[in-house]
């Protein structure tokens, strides 16, 4: 793959038109008002028939799972469709991130992380109960692993506990920095088994539960104020003696007792590829805004694009754009072959793309001068938003450790 195909370009153009007509005029309300992101995302889904596609892919996944449970070869409950599917998912991500990376975060966590985890790890009954509504955006999902005392060390340092009680569990603890936390209808929540056996906290099995909004003992905070990504609501969850039946344990006990750790790691590659596509959107937009500005802004009687130091910025941005685009293309191409990036590759892609997006966006602010610092010119928002790419889905430092761990284990 050296470029998007004609068909992918048609998808891109259609989404771009939607973004310019439906999202761009609302960016202020989404970023600085009280407009939650979900209605515009649902409109995106309805407009392009993505809800319908999700329903169809859901049916295929459930059928595959039933077949596997009936003795067939087990396969992941992924939507399927290989590279074309990967491209169809990533193109809207790139396009929306030109204006509003927060929307992609809210969307990706709900459908990809919350919905995806239920589809990969749930029983057919759990897929029916929670998965479908998450994939279609009829319900909004959160995916809760981080805690005040453990982010990078989320699995080891986790304190939220699940104490067996009858045939169910009682959950206690808090989660923080949870995307969609304030509004989520469905919450995929990770907790440590506390069976009284005295196993060291770090080594206790991690279990995955599904909670519904309004359950007794579950409190969802209001959104945090933050540096950027304002259109993606982020909050805390508090659990006080939340009673859950066995039907809320993902896999309903049929999985290995420590399935939660693998469940969290399952998401690494798709999540990291998603962040690379987000970075590409930010980089493309910053580069195109900067190129135009370099031609239009006149100083000493000539466009600033004539100055070599400005040219250097544009050149660095173009290098970043090419590299990140190539990484995204490689991921799509591998998907179409039914292959996947290794952990080192996925982490390297995320590490590079996140740093590139931040550098490009900060340089765009610089190229715009005082205007770059003003909201009207948009690059300041993209710079603030891009910073989170180096923090969530594993910090830069954590990507380094994952790359090294994978390389050194070979």
């Amino acid at each position, binding site marked *: 793959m050296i470029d998007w195909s*004609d068909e992918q370009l*048609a998808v891109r153009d*259609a989404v771009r038109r*939607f973004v310019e007509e439906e999202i761009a005029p609302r960016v202020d309300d989404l970023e600085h008002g009280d407009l939650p992101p979900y209605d515009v995302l649902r409109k995106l889904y309805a*407009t*392009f*028939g993505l809800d319908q*596609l999700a329903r169809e892919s859901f049916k295929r996944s459930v059928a595959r799972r039933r077949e596997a449970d009936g003795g067939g070869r087990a396969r992941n409950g992924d939507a399927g469709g290989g590279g074309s599917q990967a491209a169809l998912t990533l193109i809207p991500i790139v396009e929306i991130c030109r204006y509003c990376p927060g929307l992609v975060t809210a969307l990706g966590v709900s459908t990809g992380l919350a919905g995806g985890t239920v589809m990969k790890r749930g029983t057919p009954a759990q897929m029916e109960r929670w998965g479908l509504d998450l994939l279609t955006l009829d319900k909004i999902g959160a995916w809760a692993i981080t805690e005040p005392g453990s982010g990078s060390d989320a699995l080891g340092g986790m304190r939220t506990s699940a104490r067996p009680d009858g045939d169910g569990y009682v959950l206690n603890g808090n989660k923080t920095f949870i995307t969609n936390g304030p509004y989520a209808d469905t919450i995929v929540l990770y907790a440590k088994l506390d069976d009284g056996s005295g196993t060291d906290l770090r080594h206790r099995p991690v279990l995955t539960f599904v909670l519904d909004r309004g359950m007794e003992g579950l409190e969802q905070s209001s959104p945090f104020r933050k540096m950027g990504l304002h259109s993606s609501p982020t909050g805390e969850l508090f659990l006080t003696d939340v009673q859950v039946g066995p039907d809320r344990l993902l896999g309903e006990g049929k999985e290995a007792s420590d399935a939660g750790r693998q469940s969290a790691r399952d998401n690494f590659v798709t999540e990291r590829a998603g962040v690379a596509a987000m970075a590409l959107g930010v980089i493309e937009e910053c580069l195109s805004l900067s190129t135009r500005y370099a031609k239009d802004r006149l100083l000493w009687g000539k466009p600033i694009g004539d100055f070599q130091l400005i040219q250097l910025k544009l050149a660095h941005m173009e290098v970043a754009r090419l590299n990140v685009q190539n990484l995204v293309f490689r991921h799509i191409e591998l998907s179409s072959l039914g292959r996947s990036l290794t952990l080192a590759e996925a982490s390297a892609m995320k590490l590079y793309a996140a740093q590139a997006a931040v550098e490009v966006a900060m340089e765009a602010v610089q190229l715009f001068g005082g205007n770059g610092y003003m909201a009207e010119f948009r690059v300041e928002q993209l710079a603030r938003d891009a910073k989170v790419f180096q923090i969530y889905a594993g910090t830069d430092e954590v990507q380094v450790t994952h790359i090294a761990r994978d390389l050194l284990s070979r």
Partner: protein
Amino acid sequence: MAMNVVVCVKQIPDPAAPSSLDPGTKTLNRSGKLILDDSDSYGVEMALQLAGNVEGSEVTLVSMAPGGEVSGLRTALAMGAARAILVSDDSLAGSDALSTAKVLAAAIRRAEPDLVIAATESTDGYTGTLPVQVAELLGLPSVTFAKSVATDGRNLKVERQTEAGYDEVECPLPAVVTVTAGVVEPRYPSFKGIMAAKSKPVETLTVSDLGLDASQVGWAGARQEITDVSEAEARSAGEVVVDEGDGAERIVAFLEQVKVV
């Protein structure tokens, strides 16, 4: 009653991209990729709505364009049209509006339409003459400037935009209707529609396939000649009113002078 609706769609150079005239022929350079004329997206939407109302109805696109171009057609197919007829032939270069109308009329006839829809005028050529010429060549009634179109499969009811409001017009089918921009909201193609468009049938025809003679079309058949092209006059700069406390009054005085208030 199921209907076969034909929509004329022109594929034009992207108006957002830089354009140029061929210095020799003084016509627009159309060698690059062509896209669906935005004006025609309204006709496509109108046709899809009418066809969507009656089970078994279908929308067929008809286009004449150089180089076997289908990009604009794929856009309209992705919106939901069922098939397309494309006339593309080197001998068509230099066709004036009447020759184009002859070609389109011949192609439309093959599709045996119950209703033909076109835009009021194209974005690049905008003579606004083509649809009525097509209607005349096909011997069909023509209704222009439609803002709404309804049909029972036998007759057509059109609200026809006028300066004062609109006229209600009726005529029997088949007929040719032109729609004005903005009367309907052209739908976005769904992802599924975009994927499906690739495999929808596009019949590509030459001039001889249509039973026309090469002498009737292209430079050979043109009855018009472009003799000269000159730069449009630059717009004058307008008057800048510096507000010295009387800005509002001076603006009102200006508006009164041009009889806007």
